[in-house]
Structures are given as C-alpha cells and as structure tokens.
C-alpha cells in the first residue's frame, strides 16, 4: 500500500474512532489485508500526519492512550461560539487535589491534606475517580491502610498530554539554610536583649525598617554561597 493511501486510511480510522487509537490498535485494524502495513509503516505515517496537521483546523495529536483527531485548541475561542453549553468548571480544591496526585503519585489522602493544610472532601476524590482521572494504585502499609492515588491515561488524554513528563515543571523550592539564617534571625529578635520581651516590643522589632536591608543582604550572600 502506498504511503499516501495508508495515511488517508489511518486518518479516517482515527477520525471515526470515539477514543484515541494506539499503533497496536491501528495495526490490528489492518489485519487480514492483502497489503498489511507493518507497525513501522504505521508509526511513520502517524508522525507525518501529526506534523502535517499541526496547523490545520482538525489535527492529529498524540496523547497518552494513542492518536486522536481533535479541533485545534488554538481556535477554541471561535469554536466555543458554536456551543450553547459552558464547559464544566472545576473548583480550586479539586484542581489542587488533582495537581498533587499528578505530581506526587502515589499519594494518600492524608498526604494531600498535609500539603494543602485543609481536609480533602470525599466528594472531590469521588469526582476525580468518576471522571476516571484518578485511580487507586494500592494501599500504603501504614495503620488504616489508606489508598494510594495516581492518575490515569484518561487524565493525560483530557489535558492533551502524552505522558506525565509533559506536565509543567514544578517551581523550585528554596533551601532555608542557604539563606544564612543567622542574619535573618538576629533581627527577628530584639537585638542584644536577652530578657523576654513582651508582645508589643517584639512586634516593633520584627517590623524594624532595617530588617529588609538585612534580609536583602542575606539573599545576596546566599546567591554567592553555592559557588
């Protein structure tokens, strides 16, 4: 089968399917054909289709569970004019929980709560599981055997991702001890006043104007320190 015909056939199959199709699934769909394409032929055709359709209105895109045809997200603003219905909105609590599961999986509900500083409602976990974005991976071997949660391929598909590696990178966490604590410390305290100070005095000291300067220095020093 020539490569143009194979590409046309693959595009038709992906366009007609109601779920992303993997290379293996596509391969199986050609089973029994006189000129059955190999998996490498299929992979090559898919690569070309993805590249050719990148700027088109309907593009072939690779996501976690395979290749799908989708409306180019760049045109979302125009396309939503077609629809009456507003897209579903998700609460920040739900998205925070989902982000924690995505970046920290496998993770227990208790661990999520520890980081968020508030309890996670069962409804959120249930919604995430019903959407098939999150599933139980197992149970942690601690008292109570809490469930360990992780994300699914459907989660990646929904957010247009091929793998977890494509998630935006987490911002860096700065190391406290690299910031020369003594400096910041010493002026958080009434200088040269070993006697217990009362609240009012402490507050004054903390708000001292030169504190900013001091901590500015601390940051500078820290910047040089790792060298």
């Amino acid at each position, binding site marked *: 089968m020539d490569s143009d015909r194979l590409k046309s056939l693959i595009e038709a199959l992906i*366009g007609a399917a109601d779920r992303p199709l993997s290379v293996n699934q596509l391969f199986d769909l050609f089973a029994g054909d006189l000129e059955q394409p190999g998996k490498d032929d299929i992979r090559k055709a898919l690569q070309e289709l993805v590249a050719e359709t990148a700027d088109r209105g309907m593009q072939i895109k690779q996501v976690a569970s395979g290749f799908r045809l989708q409306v180019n997200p760049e045109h979302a603003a125009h396309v939503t004019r077609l629809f009456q219905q507003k897209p579903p909105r998700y609460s920040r609590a739900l998205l925070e929980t989902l982000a924690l599961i995505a970046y920290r999986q496998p993770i227990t509900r208790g661990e999520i709560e520890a980081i968020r500083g508030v309890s996670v409602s069962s409804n959120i976990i249930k919604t995430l599981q019903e959407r098939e974005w999150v599933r139980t991976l197992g149970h942690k071997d601690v008292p109570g055997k809490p469930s360990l949660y992780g994300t699914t391929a459907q989660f990646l598909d929904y957010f247009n*991702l091929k793998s977890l590696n494509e998630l935006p990178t987490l911002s860096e966490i700065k190391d406290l001890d690299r910031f020369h604590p003594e400096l910041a410390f010493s002026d958080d305290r009434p200088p040269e006043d*070993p006697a217990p100070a009362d609240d009012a005095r*402490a507050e004054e000291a903390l708000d001292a104007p030169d504190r900013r300067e001091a901590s500015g220095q601390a940051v500078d020093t820290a910047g040089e320190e790792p060298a």
Partner: protein
Amino acid sequence: MSDLFQQAANQSEMPFALVEGEPLTVIPQDLYIPPDALLVFLEAFEGPLDLLLYLIKRQNLDILDIPVAVITRQYMEYIHMMQELELELAAEYLVMAAMLAEIKSRMLLPRPVGEDDEDDPRAELIRRLQEYEQFKQATEDLDALPRMERDIFPPQAELPPLEVEIPQPEVSIRDLLLAFRDVVNRAEQFASHHIELEPLSVRERMSLVLQQLKRDGYTEFQAFFKPEEGRMGVVVSFLAILELVKESMIELMQNEPYAPIYVKPKAA
C-alpha cells in the same frame, strides 16, 4: 520610636486603595463592607496556608523571611473577622493560629549560641508554605493547559454507511461447569430439592432415545440396543429407557406376551 516603626511597617504593605492620591493601607474603622462580599473574599481561600501566603504576598515579602509577629497579627485579624461574621471556621484555621502563636513565642526566647538553622522555629512553617505555594502554582499551570471540553473538541464527523455484525458470545466450558456447580450448590441448600445425578451417559442416551422416537415415532424396543456398543452400551440404553418410562416421557407397549415390545413417545 514605637510609632515610627509602626509607620515604617505600614508603608511596606501594599495599599488597599488610593484615596485622593494617598495610599490607604488600613481599612478605615467606619468603612462598611457588605458581609456577603467579605464572605466571598474569605471563602476564596483554600485554607490557612493559602491565607498566610496571601498575607505574605500582599506585602511583597519573601516566604523565607517571614516577620512572624506581623503575619500572626494580621492572620488573627482575619480569624476574628470570620468569627464575628459567624462563618463556620474550619478547625485547620485555629490549628494554624496556635502554631503561629507558638512560633512567635519561641522567637522571643533567647537561643543558645551555635544552634543550627534547623531549629529556626519558623523552619517547618516556611517549608510548608513553600510546598503549598509550589502546588498552588502547579494548579494554575494545570488549569492553563488546553483541555477537553474547554479548549479541545472531538470531531463531529459524518460516518459512511457501515454494516456491522454482532458476533455470538463465546462461552468457555469452565464457565459452563462453574455455573452448573453453583446452581447445584444453591439447590442443595433446600432440602426438598436434593438433586440426584444419573451418570451422564444415561442422560445422554435418554435424549438420543427421545430424538429417535421423535424422528421415527413408534419404534421397536430392540432398535435401541446395538450389540456393537458392547455390554456397557446395552446397559446404558436399558437404564435410559427405564428412566424415561419412570419420568412418563415414553410408553412401552406389548400386545401379547412374548410379542415384540414397542416404544412410543408418551405425549405424542
């Protein structure tokens, strides 16, 4: 001196608003805020860490260098506001208030010389704030990704006419046998339905006899016995016919003693 410090601290805060060109950093006592609006404002926080982060960011402060006393005071003001509005205050907010008070009191105590920074009473709080901030950012990033239903839509393509056939279900013999085991086990729970199982060869032969009768009708008794099947075959046929008679499925007929015996289906 005290006033001076207070002033400096206030200046470092971001103003709430500009009134006649003057930055306003403290909510005037007489300013009326509709409770509903305040409620919305307070409910915008995802928890105590989120509220603390807001207080820190509002003053352009670095998390690594939190002025605990200031933040604690402001935090407590929000807690009081929530309590005055009789908002249902999540327990986590009060736990954080206690933690802040503890840190503040520890900051006031003299520290032995040479103590390392891990003993900074703020260390744990700073770690938690940073971690929460990290995931707050990650949540925003996640929310910004193009996603189905909002930015990405599936094609609504017309399909050519298709002829799809539905294949027959497959059954494994294992499923069949397990189904049999279960139904028998279940039936045995009821004493009245004790199931006696004849050897299968007899049941099978019963079916074959009935089949033959259905096809041929009135059949001579002899026809059901085939010498080539051996003694076992003859016994099985005989048992099958007896069982069929017992269950009123067939009738045996003999016109006179020593005359040929005939078999006929009873209901026919």
